[in-house]
């Protein structure tokens, strides 16, 4: 197979992440990985598969089941010159290392008046729809959006997965990185991936996933795909929806949303976190303020209900956003 032919191979979301890890480990000898079962096993989902064999167990550390130590030790390594990747086996378990993130890592640069930066990515599989129940389905990004000093990122496809993870691993700040585990091995959305500098997707730049003119659907993660499906359904009814994939929540690309609103005059925000104080509301608040004159209908959101994520399929489906939920909300706004 020639190099050109190889470049044309399409790869899944997980491979995107894995390539980012491998390339950055190679490029940056100071990059250290910490996590549960990331070495010998290669990670619960395989994002770090083979990494320990290649780069040694000093740089790829199989940590005890101790999320606070994983993050705290990572901060210490970062303080002493390293770049750090901390894997949470599921992003749900980030609650066990919470204090070290919001009070230790997030604030270090601020309280040291700029002396110390903490280049650190805390990443892990997130999101529902897989029957993971209360503790293997969470999208808890709002906690970190409300904790100053953290960047928050969530890719929806292989290109972004690789590009955003590479950018995050080169960012001098702590980044909480949400991977959509239901997309890890999704074959339908495989993509060709670039390498090194060429693959980078900068943090803070949204992507217009679908161009449209009747309504702006702002979303990220798995709901990007539901929104695109909803856009199709809307098209069948004669309506044109613009779908914006935020890609990073902090920093937020407000301009892209505002520009879209100046065209559509309607805002629907979709995410799978609990509603109250979730990021969907934050987008509504910002656009309600900055885009007030642009809005011809009340901004709306489709989110997880304010409940935990239950297990049994009918229960899970009730609480998580569906394509139909998005279509219905969009129609309501369009017809407003």
């Amino acid at each position, binding site marked *: 197979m020639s190099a050109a032919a190889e470049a044309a191979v399409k790869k899944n979301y997980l491979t995107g992440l894995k390539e980012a890890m491998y390339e950055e480990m190679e490029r940056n000898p100071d990059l250290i990985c910490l996590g*549960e*079962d990331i*070495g*010998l*096993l*290669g990670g*619960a989902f395989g994002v770090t598969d083979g990494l320990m064999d290649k780069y040694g167990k000093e740089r790829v550390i*199989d*940590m*005890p*089941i*101790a999320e*606070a*130590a994983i993050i705290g030790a990572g901060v210490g390594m970062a303080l002493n010159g390293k770049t750090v990747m901390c894997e949470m*086996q*599921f992003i*749900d*378990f980030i*609650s*066990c290392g919470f204090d070290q993130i919001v009070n230790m890592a997030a604030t270090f640069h601020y309280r040291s008046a700029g002396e110390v930066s903490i280049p650190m990515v805390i990443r892990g599989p997130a999101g529902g729809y897989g*029957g*993971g*129940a*209360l*503790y*293997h389905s969470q999208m808890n990004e709002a906690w970190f959006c409300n904790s100053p000093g953290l960047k928050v990122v969530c890719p929806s496809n292989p290109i972004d997965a690789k590009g955003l993870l590479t950018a995050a691993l080169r960012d001098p700040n702590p980044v909480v990185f949400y991977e959509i585990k239901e997309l890890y091995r999704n074959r339908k959305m495989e993509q060709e991936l670039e390498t090194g500098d060429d693959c980078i997707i900068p943090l803070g730049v949204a992507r217009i996933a679908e161009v449209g003119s009747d309504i702006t659907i702002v979303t990220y993660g798995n709901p990007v795909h539901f929104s695109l499906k909803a856009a199709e359904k809307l098209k069948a009814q004669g309506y044109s929806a613009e779908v914006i994939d935020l890609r990073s929540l902090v920093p937020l690309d407000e301009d892209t949303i505002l520009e879209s609103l100046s065209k559509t005059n309607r805002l629907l925000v979709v995410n799978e976190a609990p509603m109250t104080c979730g990021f969907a509301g934050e987008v509504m608040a910002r656009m309600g303020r900055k885009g007030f004159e642009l809005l011809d209908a009340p901004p709306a959101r489709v989110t997880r*209900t*304010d*409940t*935990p994520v*239950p*297990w*049994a*399929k*009918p*229960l*899970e*489906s*009730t*609480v998580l956003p569906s394509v139909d939920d998005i279509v219905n909300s969009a129609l309501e706004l369009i017809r407003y």
Partner: protein
Amino acid sequence: MAKTADPDKAAQKTAPSQTSTGLPREALSPEDYHELLMQLYLARYFDVRLIKEKKRGRLRGTLYSSHNQEAILVGALYALKSTDWISPIHRDMPAFFLKDIKAGWDNPDRLGMSIEEVCSQVWGRVDSPGRARDNWSHIGSRANKIIHSTSMLAGTIPVAAGVVYADRLDGGDAVVVTFNGEGSTSQGVFHEAVNFAAVHKLPVITIVENNHWAFGTPVELECPTPDVADRAKGYGIPGFIADGQDVLDVYDKVSMAIDHARSGKGPSIVECKTFRAYGHGDHDDDRAAKYRPDDEVAKGRSRDPIGVMKNQMIESGMLAKKDAMAHPAEGKGAGEVTDHDFPEKVVKYLSAGVDFALKSPVPDAEEALKWVFAEDED
């Protein structure tokens, strides 16, 4: 029992003995021995049956096998009173129906979950004690004194401590047994909870099922001491060590821990040395074969708890060799074993549970919005 006063002594592995040893097992009758063996069969059959059901396509989701670790569950639970509390985790599914089962497998008044309830949970049906709201081992029952765990390893230990604190305040004498993998003992909340329990001499027994692996991480990377029970030394509490393949040894050590706890002397740790028969979950079987040493499973399987118990019963004349061979489940993997390797009582009992579960409906979609807050009940 004098032994409890000297945990270090008690912690030694004890061989089954003919002469009086002062060990708790001496109070057990031959009927108890037979019941213990039957419960080992039941726990094993539950596990292999689920594996078979999944292979047959009648079951979805990840299975965390307790195959080969059953002696820990059976031995520990046999040492409890019905008023005692437990908190099982992912690898302890049989514990939910084994609790208090010695009061009669079909006794409707016993505390512990029925096999129908547990199977309904496995299949995500509405007759699960949690109405299929959370998965796998995350069920509980206040009425049956089983604590509802979250996924967060060791996270239930402080809750267990609170439960018995409240019980003691109300004049009760309950102890609580929490089940944990050796990997879970690295969690901060393990320390906070055991420390609190030790300060207040709470009757909290922390069982550590040391199967030498936490998913893909060997125990040496989780725990710096030769024995996980050594963690007890940091709290000045007994750290018992049991042969996790030997239900009688587990029974002895847990009984000592309970005696220690119930007499007001406080918490303890009981490390049960065992090994993991398969991968971490069944999604991990293939990978486990790569990260684990080749001979580990064979070596471990050679000391199957069912076989170990049978041998002791044969030695002490409670079981005829011929009868022991009637149901040769021991030493076999889930793929090799058939229903004929198990006593009929066990197969029937469990089959009823499976049949019930398969007929139990999934919960209604609208239930998802209920019970977020307590007043939602009204």
